């Protein structure tokens, strides 16, 4: 298993665990007393599950198993593939911490969310460019 795949899958499993914990927390009787917090955690919960777990698990396994043009490298540009991994995770972690804050707390939080979006988007695009090449060139 290539190192990038191991990192993707390990992070995916950690995000899965975090999503499950939030799910348990939201289901515990009495957690409604924390109502607004759990309402604000809802988008974080979905994105921990779908971006953190599902998408990163898919990207990691695809990086491992998709056909390769040569036998030496999994990616034409390994540095870009690692950059994609870093951008997606930095963006997602930023989102996890900033999104549940109450609205209108501070202007920088809004800009932080925008930065998180740009990081995840650019990371996703880089990762897909690496994989797409392998789908079409195989």
């Amino acid at each position, binding site marked *: 298993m290539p190192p990038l795949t191991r990192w993707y899958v390990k992070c995916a499993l950690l995000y899965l665990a975090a999503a499950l914990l939030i799910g348990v927390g939201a289901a515990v009787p009495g957690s409604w007393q924390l109502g607004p917090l759990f309402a604000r955690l809802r988008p974080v919960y979905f994105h921990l599950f779908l971006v953190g777990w599902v998408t990163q698990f898919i990207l990691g396994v695809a990086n491992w198993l998709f056909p390769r043009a040569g036998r030496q490298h999994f990616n034409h540009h390994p540095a870009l593939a690692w950059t994609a991994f870093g951008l997606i995770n930095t963006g997602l972690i930023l989102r996890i911490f900033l999104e549940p804050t109450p609205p209108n707390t501070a202007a920088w939080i809004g800009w932080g969310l925008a930065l998180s979006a740009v990081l995840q988007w650019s990371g996703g695009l880089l990762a*897909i460019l690496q994989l797409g090449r392998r789908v079409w060139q195989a």
Partner: protein
Amino acid sequence: MKFHPVIRWMLGFSLFYLVLGFTLGSLLLIHKGINLHPLLWNLRPVHIEITLWGFITQLAVGVGYGIFPRYRARRPRGNPAAHTVLVILINLGIVLTILGSWNFAPDWTPAVGAAAKAVGFGGFAVTLWTRMRPYRV
């Protein structure tokens, strides 16, 4: 290793939808942070549709189609022409469902889109079902 054309198209489409999913999701998150335009929230159902059906489901079915057991010497995965039609139906269905979420589209658009997706994914479900066998049988 070379991908079967049906698999290649399904994986290609699913990665394309992932690009769209990341793009729309990022626009929504930026809007949440710094209020770009209120109409952007209308893209939320599109974001969900292309992520869940276009990316995740299509990728899972495409990978299953590629790696499930193949028993027949000729056409080991079944009829490729029929499966190509199913891929077209799936993606036509997704596009129609997206168009149907907007006001300008005719009323029948979401129903036809959902039906096309159902026939497309349903056809692949039948194909995958028939290719599942226990070991040593």
